[in-house]
């Protein structure tokens, strides 16, 4: 099962009636929905459609003692009902507004009461400053007054599930642009290539020299330098092995050590 999609709702503040009932300790009493109506001789609802005692539905109303005989009593009853309904609606909306106001702490300082905190006053002051026709651009600040925090432009990000295809396209475009301007790598490659060619030439030259000269000194020099030679004939060890028989053991030992390193690094 998946976790809850939306977070739990916040507890709402009590309405005025609920606060009063709590104070007085009034508990809600369960009432029946149907009431016996003598006039119609049947069980009618307490409230709602065809209710038991609907005073707007009476067909005969006696004019009360002190009232004007030409007044329309039926109309009076309709007016009274409309007023009651409107009052109820007003209270409902006020309760709702109270609940919503609680959820906006940023609007805390904007209704002036006698007891506002320093932050609330500061917030109210900043809001007042921006409430001019030019949105506060030409309002001067007091010498030590600080600018409001978080008053800059708000950054807007793409939505989380934007158009995936469009996102992919823009990313591929970015990659294409990135890849199109990469000339500097070629320079380093060219220099490496050059170095390799030079090494090959030098290695070939030294091999020729060592073949010609059979002296100990001659051999030591090229042997030491050949350590670094990158690409020579593939079976260098074998080749040297053949030559090593003709050399003195000391020189052969030194060369062996040097040659092994060169062979290793070449891969």
């Amino acid at each position: 099962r998946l976790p809850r999609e939306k977070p739990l709702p916040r507890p709402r503040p009590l309405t005025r009636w609920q606060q009063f009932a709590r104070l007085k300790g009034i508990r809600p009493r369960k009432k029946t929905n149907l009431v016996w109506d003598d006039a119609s001789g049947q069980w009618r609802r307490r409230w709602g459609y065809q209710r038991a005692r609907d005073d707007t539905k009476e067909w005969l109303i006696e004019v009360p003692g002190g009232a004007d005989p030409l007044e329309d009593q039926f109309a009076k009853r309709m007016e009274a009902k409309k007023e009651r309904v409107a009052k109820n609606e007003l209270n409902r909306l006020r309760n709702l507004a109270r609940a919503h106001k609680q959820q906006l702490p940023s609007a805390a300082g904007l209704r002036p009461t006698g007891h506002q905190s320093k932050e609330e006053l500061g917030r109210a002051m900043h809001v007042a400053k921006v409430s001019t026709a030019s949105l506060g651009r030409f309002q001067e600040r007091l010498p030590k007054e600080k600018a409001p925090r978080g008053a800059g432009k708000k950054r807007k990000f793409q939505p989380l599930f934007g158009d995936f295809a469009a996102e992919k396209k823009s990313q591929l475009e970015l990659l294409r642009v990135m890849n199109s301007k990469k000339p500097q790598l070629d320079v380093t490659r060219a220099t490496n290539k050059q170095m390799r060619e030079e090494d090959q030439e030098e290695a070939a030259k030294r091999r020729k020299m060592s073949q010609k000269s059979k002296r100990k000194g001659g051999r030591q020099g090229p042997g030491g330098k050949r350590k670094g030679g990158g690409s020579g004939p593939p079976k260098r060890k074998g080749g040297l092995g053949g030559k090593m028989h003709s050399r003195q053991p000391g020189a052969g030992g030194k060369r062996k050590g040097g040659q092994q390193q060169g062979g290793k690094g070449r891969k």
Partner: protein
Amino acid sequence: MRPLTEEETRVMFEKIAKYIGENLQLLVDRPDGTYCFRLHNDRVYYVSEKILKLAANISGDKLVSLGTCFGKFTKTHKFRLHITALDFLAPYAKYKVWIKPGAEQSFLYGNHVLKSGLGRITENTSQYQGVVVYSMADVPLGFGVAAKSTQDCRKVDPMAIVVFHQADIGEYVRHEETLT
């Protein structure tokens, strides 16, 4: 959680392209599903569309991780690649380095690779090129930066560093708390 901005995408692609070059478009445009990058708490996650839709139901402060973490953006907006991205770098790597069995242990503890531990290296590796490090059995061990080009690797002495260590799979144990 939000998608990356243009700037952030560019920085991240530049970093990843150092290791896999133009194969990066195979990560962006995959035939087997829509995958995308999302930023959450400064970390970049590579996640399929299906998983992303499920992750959207979890509130931001409770969400720890989704998909694969590629890396994170530092406070100064530089992108740092984490070891968890290795699964996607290894198959597409352009420049590879193989190290000997003896040097594996040292690399997995976070040390740089010395010339004496170097087994093979792809030809034409330039200096400071991003490389992926493998063992001799072709198991990806991590990634790093080549300290010397292939040419220089041959000439240098055995105690010189040839690959700077950046991430290795030993970090899964050493940095367990910080990886997501």
